């Protein structure tokens, strides 16, 4: 325990490749927006946004390399938001 590697920092190249991936996903989402996918357009756009944010949170924001408590925090706030959205959507749909 004395020597656990809490300060694992990714190198410059990791950040660079994540940035390239983010740009690639951006160009995909812009291209896909031009194609009519009907009701899936929104799902695809949000799916790509979710992948992009996962990259930013995990690598740029270091969550992947932080202690467990940070991941618990993150999960807690994510599920809080999710519950608010799900409960509200029930209200919208069954009103």
């Amino acid at each position, binding site marked *: *325990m*004395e*020597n*656990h590697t*809490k*300060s694992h*920092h*990714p*190198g*410059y190249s990791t*950040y*660079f490749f*994540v*940035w390239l991936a*983010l*740009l690639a996903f*951006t160009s995909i*989402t*812009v291209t896909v*927006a*031009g194609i*009519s996918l009907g009701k899936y*357009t929104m799902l695809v*756009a*949000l799916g*790509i*946004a979710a992948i*992009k*944010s996962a990259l*930013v*949170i995990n*690598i*740029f*924001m*270091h969550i992947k390399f*932080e*202690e467990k*408590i*940070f991941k618990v*925090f*993150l999960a807690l*706030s994510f599920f*809080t*938001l999710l519950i*608010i*959205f799900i409960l*509200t*959507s029930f209200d*919208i749909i069954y009103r």
Partner: protein
Amino acid sequence: MSSHQEGTVAHVHRDDIGAKMGMWLFLFTEVLLFGGMFLVYAFYRFQHQDQFRVAAMELNTGIGTLNTVILLTSSLTVALAIAAIQKGNRFLSVLMLNITLVFAVMFMVNKYFEWSAKISHGLFPGSKEMLDLPNGQILFYGLYYVMTGLHALHVIIGVVILSFMLIQLMKKKITQDNHVKLENAGLYWHLVDLIWIFLFPLFYLIQ
């Protein structure tokens, strides 16, 4: 429990993990602030799907995409600034932070041109042209101004914070062993990027 930072001097009382934890808690309040707005957006978009599509056609996808690229790149440079100071490379860190600030200003300049084009077309809340539009379109533009406006406010605050960090970095108050301030400022900047990742498809890419 071996969370002592490497290089912590015996008499210095510092809690980097605690500082970062506080920053993350603050970021979650920000997420809930914007989350509430995204909820309003989802509700009205569900109610006025066609009007949202018509109104979104007016937005400039080119500027939106350019600003996305700018923000993503500024996120990279801020991450590189932190990585550089962790490796003890102050010069690179200062350089990257300066580039980040340049990108932030570029983002705001684009925003200025985008908004002033809209306003010169009479598309702003409360204008005569706006009030003639159907309800769904008024709601779209209202949300557009409030959400991208609040985001732009965060960009401005981010510029102030990062400038402050740049000064601290140059005064050697932020060092290889003590850089949690810069890390927290970076977290704030990444959050600004994160919110834009969702704003961009929801406002600029509706078909």
